[in-house]
């Protein structure tokens, strides 16, 4: 009786335990031939329509069709699967901060800047974010953006608050939004600051970077011979982390901020849960549609203890080394960066903009969109845009600092300096692993 039950159970157990082992397979080289050109983008909803429109315009111009694959939060997972099975597309449009990661995977083709049609029109700052630590180019820029503070204007005016001019003003506004019923529904259900504090994809680190720079700190400092020192154990970084933590600990951040990812935070803002959101201009169209243009305003985050720097990032078209259509891939990337491609990406879908700030100097965001807000965003990008340090691979650093910051944010009584020391040690180890730790 016992063994009759136990034996099938044992084999069942072993079989099922085997499922615990992910199916990680080896590498084969893709044999993609001829048309159409395969392009992957990280996009959702109407953003996908915008890319399709770009694809159609490209086809009209060149005769080559574009076969798009769209993904959003599971982009990396799908990408990993594609690398493992040797089935990569020709072009991948992805974050500038992913360059090092993609480079370390050995999947990127080097780009000859001079072969990009209209390369002189692409702004220098954008080209810089397509550069590897070796100074060579590994992508063609397609879009940029910068972080600013989105404020519920209707809430602010109802409570008769002036625009914030200091970090302290922002805290006060967050407190007022939390306690003074700015939506006037008689319920205590509104909050101040929207924070994506999750460790997933390193969101906590991504969000905190603006504050760290504004406080005068940084993750790393360049040293001699292309090496870096880990600098998270400074008073400036502690100031920044404590400032962000204060929103969570005074309960003026949205509930569950500590686990929030960006797909949670954007709705927090536009559904009226919270009224202050430091983010990029990805969702202006959605906010216009869901909230209305008159209900919110966009300003630079008030100057911090040291400066007014704001996280600047963007996207590049990366050409895969495995592509059999290197020329065509480069042609498509050039088209996306051209005034024509940029304009379609900016305007085709109002609530799905795939080009936020143009990377092409011939294109003006405000005039193309007929929306003066973009002029100020472009000005902030030019003046205060701060990109992530140019280490070989930023992704592991974003992830490990994201976990560390999440740890600090999750306990109001944690010793910030001590915890930052721990993160700094881990950061040193990672720099060492990337062979760029300053001795």
């Amino acid at each position, binding site marked *: *009786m016992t063994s009759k039950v136990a034996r099938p159970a044992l084999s069942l157990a072993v079989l099922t335990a085997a499922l*615990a*082992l992910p199916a990680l397979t080896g590498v084969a080289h893709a044999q993609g031939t001829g048309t159409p050109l395969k392009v992957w983008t990280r996009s959702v909803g109407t953003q996908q329509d915008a890319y399709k429109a770009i694809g159609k315009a490209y086809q009209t111009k060149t005769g080559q069709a574009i076969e798009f694959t769209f993904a959003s939060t599971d982009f990396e997972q799908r990408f990993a699967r594609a690398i493992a099975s040797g089935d990569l597309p020709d072009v991948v449009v992805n974050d500038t901060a992913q360059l090092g990661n993609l480079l370390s995977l050995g999947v990127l083709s080097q780009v000859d800047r001079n072969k990009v049609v209209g390369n002189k029109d692409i702004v220098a700052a954008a080209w810089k974010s397509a550069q590897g630590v070796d100074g060579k180019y590994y992508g063609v820029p397609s879009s940029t953006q910068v972080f600013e503070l989105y404020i519920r204007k209707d809430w602010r005016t109802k409570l008769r608050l002036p625009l914030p001019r200091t970090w302290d003003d922002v805290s006060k506004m967050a407190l007022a939004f939390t306690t003074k019923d700015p939506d006037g529904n008689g319920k205590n259900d509104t909050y101040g600051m929207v924070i994506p504090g*999750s*460790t997933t994809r390193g969101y906590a680190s991504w969000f905190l970077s603006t504050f760290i720079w504004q406080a005068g700190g940084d993750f790393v400092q360049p040293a001699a011979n292309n090496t870096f020192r880990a600098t998270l154990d400074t008073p400036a970084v502690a100031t920044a982390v404590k400032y962000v933590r204060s929103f969570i600990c005074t309960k003026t951040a949205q509930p569950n901020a500590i686990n929030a990812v960006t797909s949670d935070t954007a709705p927090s803002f536009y559904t009226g849960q919270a009224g202050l959101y430091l983010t990029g201009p990805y969702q202006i169209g959605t906010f216009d549609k869901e909230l209305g243009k008159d209900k919110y305003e966009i300003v630079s985050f008030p100057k911090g203890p040291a400066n007014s720097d704001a996280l600047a990032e963007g996207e590049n078209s990366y050409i895969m080394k495995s592509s059999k259509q290197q020329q065509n891939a480069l042609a498509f990337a050039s088209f996306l960066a051209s005034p024509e491609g940029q304009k379609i990406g900016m305007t085709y879908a109002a609530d799905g903009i795939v080009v936020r700030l143009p990377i092409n100097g011939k294109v003006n965001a405000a005039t193309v969109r007929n929306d003066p807000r973009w002029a100020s965003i472009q000005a902030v990008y030019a003046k205060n845009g701060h990109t992530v340090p140019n280490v070989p691979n930023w992704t592991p650093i974003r992830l490990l600092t994201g976990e560390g910051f*999440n740890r600090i944010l999750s*306990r109001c009584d944690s010793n910030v300096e001590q915890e930052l020391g721990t993160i700094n040690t881990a950061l040193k180890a990672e720099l060492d692993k990337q062979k760029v730790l300053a001795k």
Partner: protein
Amino acid sequence: MTAARRRAGRETLVAWLFLIPALLAFAYFKFLPMVEGIQLSFYKVNFGGQNTWVGWDNFRTVVNDPDFRAALVHTLINGVSVAVLSAVIALLVALALQGSRRSVFFVRSAIFLPAITSVAIVAEIFKLLYYPSATGPLNIVLGWFGVPAQPFFSSPDTALGSLVGMQVWKAVPYDAAIFIAGLATISKDLYEAAAIDGASRWHRFLNVTVPGLAPTFTIILTLAIIRGFRVFTEVYATTGGGPAGSTDVVMTRIYKLGFETFDYGLASAASTLMFIVTAVLTAIYLTWSRRKA
């Protein structure tokens, strides 16, 4: 005798022939990738070119990683708590719902719903239920009993417990269904005989029901242990392993290694270790339960 043996041999052959298609499918989709995964554990995987042999380095890194060790502890706590709590509750539910009355049949179908609801949906529902302010649905209920608003997923102290609660909710109906089936196999004669001998309801439960359910317990706990070790979506869709890594489990760590930092070698080593641990634990449990019975 020889004829019988020959017939038996032929039956075995037929059985294997029937099994071959399934085995081939398993071999291609499960065992080969598994072997490859184990192989990758010994390499620094380089997608653009040749992989570099690193020996036991990946295993050393995983074993020495404090975050990974913490994740292993969380996985154990989570797995054991979910397995035991849901088995106990499921047994009570099964005892209440056994029999063949029409009303019971309806309740039995209705109560099974959580088991067939997708984990991602359950996670979204619980994020709402666990809304960590006084206006959250569960906090409103707790408020009726004078319990202050709980942070649930948003505090390192309560996140893992909240996660266990969510999984128990989903696992109970599944376990209960197996228990109901198990209860049906216990002969009514045994209960009657015990009753005639003057055994109380409690004694009948202890001396007839529990021994009669021994194989069912084995199946439920074995499945629960395995399920517990592979927990991923439940965590990824709610806390992502936070806050402060308090709900980080082995699978979320492997996911981060494999799909966020693309370190396939390290992720494979972690998976291989996980496979060994699961297999060993399951074997220990089965040996123990076999010896006991």
